């Protein structure tokens, strides 16, 4: 073994790494890039990977140097794509820790973020030119940029930040909710049903509060749109930008 071949191996790997990092920065999506990465639901979702290696002509995203919170690349490029009139999106956030659903109906948007337990929040916003911003209780905030068949952006809920790129969904996938009075307390439940059949859901047990607390929701039977919470049968409605239900 020659003296310096291990070093050559190391440097080759480092060069490969740096090259791929730069290529990744070039390929980081602006609004009209191919489908995002959600390590979730159907693996077939991100199959248009071939385009990723040819960098889009637009300026490279600043995500590597942007401050930890703002996903400025997503927001900055939002001007490139116009908002849809009616659409529903749902999926897991990028590290799978939670799910987010966003529905757009005309000028209104409703979003729900949920980790199947305590972290959840209902948000609403108005569709304008530029990125969609939704806000809710507990300082929840979601910024959305529109893509082709998906939206991407970042969310802040209960002090935790998430990035996401979620795809269009259709019934029975999507966002469901019900508000009810159970033993004198107003509860509001939300479920996000994903195309792979999994669902997450939380119930705010004090929905009137400015800072509601939440617990894991009982399973929603999507066929009958019912769930049983503390012995009470709840009848959920779908929030759908497509049909206008829930708006």
């Amino acid at each position, binding site marked *: 073994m020659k003296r310096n071949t291990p*070093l050559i191996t190391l440097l080759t790997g480092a060069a490969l790494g740096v090259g*791929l990092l730069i290529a*990744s920065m070039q390929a980081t999506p602006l609004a009209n890039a191919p489908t995002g990465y959600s390590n979730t639901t159907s693996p077939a*979702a991100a199959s248009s990977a071939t385009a990723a*290696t040819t960098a889009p002509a637009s300026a490279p995203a600043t*995500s590597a140097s942007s401050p930890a919170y703002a996903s400025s690349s997503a927001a900055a490029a939002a001007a490139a794509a116009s908002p849809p009139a009616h659409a529903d999106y749902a999926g897991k956030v990028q590290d799978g*820790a939670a799910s987010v659903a966003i529905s757009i109906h005309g000028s209104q948007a409703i979003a729900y973020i949920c980790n199947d337990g305590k972290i959840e929040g209902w948000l609403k916003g108005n569709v304008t030119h530029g990125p969609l911003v939704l806000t809710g209780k507990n300082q929840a905030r979601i910024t959305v940029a529109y893509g082709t068949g998906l939206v*991407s952006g970042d969310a802040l809920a209960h002090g935790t930040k998430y*990035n996401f790129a979620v795809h269009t969904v259709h019934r029975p996938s999507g966002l469901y909710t019900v508000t009810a009075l159970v033993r004198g307390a107003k509860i509001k439940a939300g479920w996000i049903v994903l195309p792979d059949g999994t669902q997450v859901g939380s119930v705010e047990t004090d929905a009137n509060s400015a800072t509601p607390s939440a617990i894991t929701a009982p399973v929603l039977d999507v066929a009958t749109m019912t769930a049983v919470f503390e012995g009470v049968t709840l009848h959920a409605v779908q929030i759908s930008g497509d049909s206008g239900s829930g708006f």
Partner: protein
Amino acid sequence: MTAQPETLPPGRTASGVSTLVVPSVIGGLVALTLGIYGRLHHPTGIAVNIAGFSSPGYVKSWLATAATVFAIIQVVSALVMYGKVPRVSAPSWIGGLHRWSGRLAFLLAVPVAIHCLYALGFQGYSTRVLIHSVLGCLFFGAFTVKMLILPKRGVPGWVLPVVGAVVFTALVAIWLTSAYWFFSTFGIHR
């Protein structure tokens, strides 16, 4: 490996564990840099990709599996080289096999790691993910150490097998906390 006593020019430090200091520091810095980058960088959910697979998760899982297979070849060839396999004597090409399987394992691991760091970042939201993130950094640090001590004279004989074992164990644990989990969750296909 037989340790030959070295005659050193006067004033040089003795061989032995002191040869490990600089490589260890450099390896530690590599591991730290990856971890800090993974933590500070705002994960994008996207990175450069390879066509022919059904999703980035599959690209990484298959590449990682290939890297792990080459790592197993590494360990087996090392055992043969050290004469640890009964009734098998080391053929002349075993060193070449060991080095090239190692290079391939490393070079396959690099794109997976870049994708992981860039798209997902250093995460701790579950035990699996935390172990993966920590060991991922450790793997590259340990591999750096291994590469840096190989050409060095005077390194104690036990060091190389130990570092090799750390590299291998880390990679297997990384594979278990990622590709194995991914295939179990989403199925084994392209």
